[in-house]
């Protein structure tokens, strides 16, 4: 047991900190730190800066741009990035489809997609959920039927985050309706400009356009865009969702958000009740961060530490709790949510209600927090 980072890891952290705070544009970082929305161009620009330095996809295989870092180094990279306000590389590309193609894809798929995916030349969307397939994802119904060398896809995906920017979408489709539901699923990569693909916006409670429905009518997909084997989709999805869970506990970003709130709402910190709420949240975030470090230090051998479900569950709760505090501190000023930029209310206060509402999503996606409790009670506690 020992607390200090090794000299090597401390130097690594310093290197990351320097890079993130000097190489990524201040304007982009301020946008993140102030909790404002990034444009598509900003997200692309930031990822390309990282990728040029080999820092966009360090967890990929080395031959495709990965870094062969230790889990701790990867953790430090991730934390320092959030701390500096650098947008995390687009999860659909960097954490989801990239590792899947690297693991399950054909050589041709790897060459065609991986470099463009790392550099965000292709923007991927995730087409898993359907109106009737949420937590019970395996009950999905979007079908793909063989026709010569092609697959013909029909059905509907929903909740497709930032699908309006999507160039390609990785989908789970039913290729065999006869077998057990998990066994009949395959993964297809679909060019979103193909005739028959239609993206329809969904407005969320914060007024934002963040998610979409994606409809497929007789969409023809060349056979070489199926990943792995037909029927292997569920195995691939489990691999992908396992990676997704690790990324959804934004400890560093939540810490940063709380620290920023202490500055923006500084005048309210005279109130002992406010101080107590901040102190309690800071302690909870410390507990979460230390648990993340314990998980990282124990995850040797690739198997995720069982406590990683704790990170998703608690990480999202705390992310939400900080947004609640911001809303409370904004008080009446938060009513100006949709006021114009000439509003006399400060930006953080105007954003506080939409942000609070928006972050309710965090305990629903990425395996809802009920699903995380199920994982803990079944696989850790054996209940």
């Amino acid at each position: 047991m020992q607390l200090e980072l090794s000299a090597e890891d401390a130097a690594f952290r310093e290197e990351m900190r320097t890079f993130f705070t000097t190489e990524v544009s201040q304007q982009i970082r301020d946008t993140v730190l102030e909790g404002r929305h990034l444009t598509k161009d900003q997200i692309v620009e930031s990822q390309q800066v990282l990728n040029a330095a080999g820092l966009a996809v360090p967890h990929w295989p080395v031959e495709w741009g990965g870094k062969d870092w230790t889990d701790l180094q990867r953790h430090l990279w991730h934390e320092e990035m959030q701390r500096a306000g650098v947008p995390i590389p687009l999860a659909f590309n960097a954490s989801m489809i990239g590792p899947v193609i690297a693991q399950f894809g054909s050589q041709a798929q790897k060459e065609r997609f991986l470099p463009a995916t790392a550099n965000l030349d292709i923007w991927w969307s995730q087409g898993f959920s359907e109106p009737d397939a949420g937590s019970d994802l395996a009950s999905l119904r979007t079908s793909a039927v063989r026709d010569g060398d092609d697959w013909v896809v029909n059905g509907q995906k929903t909740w497709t985050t930032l699908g309006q920017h999507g160039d390609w979408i990785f989908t789970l489709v039913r290729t065999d309706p006869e077998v057990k539901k998990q066994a009949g699923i395959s993964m297809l990569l679909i060019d979103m400009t193909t005739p028959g693909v239609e993206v329809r916006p969904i407005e969320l409670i914060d007024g934002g356009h963040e998610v979409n429905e994606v409809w497929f009518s007789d969409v023809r997909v060349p056979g070489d865009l199926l990943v792995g084997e037909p029927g292997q989709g569920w195995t691939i999805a489990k691999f992908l969702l396992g990676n997704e869970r690790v990324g959804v506990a934004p400890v560093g970003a939540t810490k940063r958000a709380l620290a920023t709130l202490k500055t923006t709402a500084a005048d309210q910190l005279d109130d002992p009740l406010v101080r107590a709420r901040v102190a309690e949240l800071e302690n909870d975030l410390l507990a979460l961060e230390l648990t993340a470090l314990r998980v990282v230090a124990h995850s040797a051998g690739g198997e995720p530490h069982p406590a990683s479900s704790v990170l998703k569950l608690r990480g999202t709760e705390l992310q939400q709790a900080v947004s609640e505090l911001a809303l409370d501190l904004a008080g009446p000023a938060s009513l100006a949510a949709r006021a114009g930029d000439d509003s006399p209310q400060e930006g953080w206060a105007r954003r506080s209600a939409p942000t609070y509402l928006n972050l309710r999503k965090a305990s629903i996606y990425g395996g809802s927090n009920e699903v995380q409790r199920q994982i803990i009670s079944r696989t850790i506690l054996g209940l």
Partner: protein
Amino acid sequence: MDFTYDDEQLALREAVRGLLATTYADHDSRRRTVAEDPGFDRALWGRLAEMGVLGLPFSEEHGGVGAGPVEIGIVCRELGRVLAPEPYLASVVHAGGLVAAVGTPAQKADLLGRLSAGELVLAAAGTAPGTGRASGAAGVRASVSGDAWTLDGVADPVVGGESADVLVVTAALPDDAGTGVFLVESGAAAVTGYAAADLTRAASVRFDASDATPLGEPGRDLRASVATIADLTRIMGANQALGVMESQVRATTDYLKSRKQFGVTLNTFQALTFRAADMYVSLELATSVVDWATMTIAGGDRHAVADAADRAGLQVSRAGRHIGQEAIQLHGGIGMTAEYAVGVGTAHLEVLDQWLGNGLHHLSRLSARVTDHDLVEALS
């Protein structure tokens, strides 16, 4: 950075666990022990001495073992797992800690040697570590005439006070000169013992012109050292609480798997398994902070240790309320009984917490410092 025990630490844990199992194999043996004087098992205390556990924190030149905080934390965690009533925290960690921190070389060699050998039991009196007046020693006053010191006042609760041979007393120095620490033979004070809610023993100690020997240099203000030892004790108490909570989470999951109602085992009901999952979450988070706080001690910076004590104290206090309450609730009526360990564990958690510093106390200290930093740094 490393959050795992090395081989020697694992061996220590197994040895202590094995030894404790000989005395507290089940909750009945603990019940019998606390029902009789002195409220703990003297034979076990002797074997802990033989194993070197009582001398763990003290240097070899004073008859100890010179182990680090992680090792002491391991012992406390094991004591907590079986709700051991032995006054390890009070006698070794707190009172022994005070002697080691401020005693003269001769005092250390004498007292710590005998403490390590199990020949002498100490108790710390004057203030409870967790009160707001932690280092103020409001209840006991020292007077001096020539170089003869006496104490007056009441110290309560003095955990383990009834069985102590020597009391290590914090007291207000004359002329508002700060806080001194004194040694008082137990015969020189009026000691009235009682049991706390978890049936561990404490005492009310009245000093009435009681003869006292200054620990360390006479008349010196030792407030800072007293506070630091209270912080160390808080962190070790958090380790002990973790052991209790580990046992409670295990007992609760076992119970859900075996207890049948409506013709099925209770783990059939998701309303219950989800609550067990939340208990596990609280335990993991508390473990992380307690491990961190324990490692912080090794760094030796007393402000860092004070901060770590508040953080571990708050985390463990919150977790203790959550796990302690749910452990009883998910057991139903049996959890309410004195013959069952789960509910007694909840009582033990409260005693540790109220003695060493409850959530309110630590939150209020942390709140006062909220504007001193931008972020809380986990790794320096």
